[in-house]
């Protein structure tokens, strides 16, 4: 029998799985309201209304959790769900009366209802030790630890605007940009196992991968290997994926750094990149308390000081970075002053200063 060849079907058509009310009013919605945290109510031009109840999940779910969510969807909602980009699950119902029982059931089963409007939503995260081949830390664990701490901020809408937190378990930054990002930051050059380099690594590719041209081919102990100019090395770990014998991860020296102000939306200002605020934070499982404390401090200050509708980036743009460091009591160091390409753009070429 010839082998089965794949059906290259690509992205499935969503209409087959879509709540009928959404399919019926596709492209014809009028406005929405948020009756309470975790609930959206959309009104269509036809007059139809749909209520969405949003709940947090652990993203990496076991079959029992998924089936429980399906049971809830069947019993308390209308058999349809969808997921947000931040791994929240959404249940859609056509009748307001179903909202509260659904919320009650989700809550009873341990699924926090929230993540809408000006709340802290679920943390977008990478794979970490659970499944990545180059991780400097865990991801699901960091996120669980943090979301435990931020639970109240998920189920309430008490922040000035929405807060997106991300984590990345290496400096490639698969987590992307966030209002707050907690990312691995290596602080020492890779430790090279010269016995393995020649066999495992395509050396010219590795040399090409270095952002600062700090890697060169070399003979070490008579074997062809690679050498790192440690004065130039920025410890980014770019060489590690194409060349695992260049171990960048280190239980002590792979630290966490916290970045602030990344914003993808075009609302108000143009999209912004996140900026370094803290580094040298220990990578401390299982609850990463030092990182969590800084995140919570930033959120507390933001909540107290920002105006309605200010994303974290908008807020800092208004109050200025000096005040940010003052309010968060984080140290400002020479490392905060950019020296990468185009760094001059980040200098204050004006007398715009707050005193």
């Amino acid at each position: 029998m010839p082998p089965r060849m794949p059906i290259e079907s690509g992205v499935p058509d969503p209409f087959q799985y879509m709540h009928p009310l959404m399919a019926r009013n596709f492209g014809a919605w009028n406005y929405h309201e948020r009756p309470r945290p975790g609930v959206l109510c959309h009104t269509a031009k036809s007059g139809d209304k749909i209520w969405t109840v949003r709940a947090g999940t652990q993203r990496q779910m076991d079959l029992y959790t998924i089936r429980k969510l399906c049971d809830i969807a069947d019993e308390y909602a209308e058999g349809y769900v969808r997921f947000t980009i931040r791994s929240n699950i959404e249940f859609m119902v056509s009748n307001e009366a179903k909202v509260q029982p659904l919320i009650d059931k989700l809550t009873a089963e341990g699924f926090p209802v929230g993540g809408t409007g000006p709340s802290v939503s679920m943390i977008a995260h990478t794979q970490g030790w659970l499944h990545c081949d180059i991780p400097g830390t865990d991801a699901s664990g960091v996120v669980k630890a943090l979301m435990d701490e931020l639970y109240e901020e998920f189920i309430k809408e008490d922040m000035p605007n929405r807060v997106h937190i991300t984590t990345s378990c290496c400096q490639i930054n698969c987590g992307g940009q966030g209002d707050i990002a907690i990312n691995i930051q290596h602080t020492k050059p890779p430790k090279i196992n010269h016995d393995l380099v020649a066999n495992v690594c395509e050396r010219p590719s590795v040399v090409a991968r270095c952002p600062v041209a700090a890697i060169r081919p070399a003979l070490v102990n008579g074997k062809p290997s690679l050498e790192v100019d440690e004065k130039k090395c920025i410890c980014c770990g770019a060489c590690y994926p194409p060349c695992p014998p260049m171990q960048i991860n280190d239980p002590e020296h792979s630290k966490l750094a916290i970045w602030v102000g990344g914003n993808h939306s075009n609302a108000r200002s143009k999209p912004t990149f996140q900026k370094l605020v803290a580094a040298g934070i220990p990578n401390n499982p299982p609850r990463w308390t030092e990182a969590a404390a800084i995140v919570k401090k930033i959120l507390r200050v933001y909540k107290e000081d920002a105006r309605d509708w200010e994303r974290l980036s908008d807020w800092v743009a208004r109050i200025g970075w000096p005040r940010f460091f003052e309010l968060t009591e984080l140290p400002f160091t020479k490392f905060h002053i950019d020296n990468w390409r185009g760094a001059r753009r980040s200098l204050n070429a004006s007398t715009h200063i707050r005193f």
Partner: protein
Amino acid sequence: MSKPMHDTPMLDQLESGPWPSFVTGIKRLAKDEGKPYQNMMIDLLGQLEHSYKTRKGYWKGGTVGVIGYGGGVIPRFSEVAANYPASKEFHTLRIQPAAGMHYDTKIMRQLCDVWEKYGSGLIAFHGQSGDIMFQGVSSDKVQAAFDELNEMGFDLGGAGPAVRTGMSCVGAARCEHSCANEQKIHRILVNNFLDDMHRPALPYKFKFKVSGCPNDCMNSIERADMAVIGTWRDEMKVNQAEVKTFVAKKGRKYVIDNVITRCPTNALSLNDDDSLAVDNRNCVRCMHCINVMTKALSPGDDKGVTVLMGGKRTLKIGDLMGTVVIPFMKLEAQEDYDKLREIAEATIDFFAENALEHERTGEMIERIGLVNFLEGIGLEVDPNMIAEPRQCSYVRMDTWDEEAQKWFTRKAEEKRAAAAG
């Protein structure tokens, strides 16, 4: 009879607290007597606890796949299989969800059944790539699991130097801000490049993302090589009665300080009678006022999309945002969608031929210059592509007159076309 559980004192601490615990979930699978995945999950917990203790990861890549495809399965072999043999192979299938991540419970349960039979019982909804990640399958069961999912109508997503799984927002299905048919764009683009997705042969990854409005809930500007974002070009809609209701409720000062002054181009003014004056000519469709006054304000009727290219993350030259290459195009007739597809084709062809190994589209644009890239994919320069013109005189401009003439010719043609149409 299963093997004994490893001690997991650190992971155990992730079972407390109010947030749903993935550890509890994995433990449940590890305690699932008689299931094919039980021992695998016991050792998975053991290896993960070992990572927590030693603060290092222990997975390495390799080569695992399905017949007919060159990518889409993420191979994971344990480096500590001697201690945790049952999870020595723990591969992931990247499966593309329906556009917009819609499910009914029937299909969800079917997905679970497949993973109960062949996999670890652990599924992530969804990975950062936009895939359902069926995490944890041994090499010998990859093909069977895929075949069953594939028969159900699902396909592998992208991995490696390939077109990757796309993402699109809920959009027209439930959002009044939607200015496009997000799922259609998503499916047309990705499904046109399945060969480039399943047989990785590009210089590096290439991602499509689609957001229905400038709020860009899919983060497409920062995360996609080609971002398609809904917008509109006529006037925004203003329901002055709802404006007045809002002002009455919130107060004039609140509205001035939180709506009027936040407009990035000072295009809003509150009239003395509490109605809103909108300078639509200078509105940049930032969405702020619409986000705040959802009932009073909404996008216009003449909808279409803006296309940006070159977003990516840190490696190798630092994070880059995508930049505008098409300020506006309508997406109504089939020809409109064909044109979008053709632009994507030209882009991927140019990328395939001109990017260096492991170079993203944005880095290639940075290296060769936006103008050369535009010429390469057959698009004309447009002032909407820039935030501001050059500020350094260091450029050779001896063909200025020809370039100026191109502009005048284009403008004259547009005028003729507008008059004719």
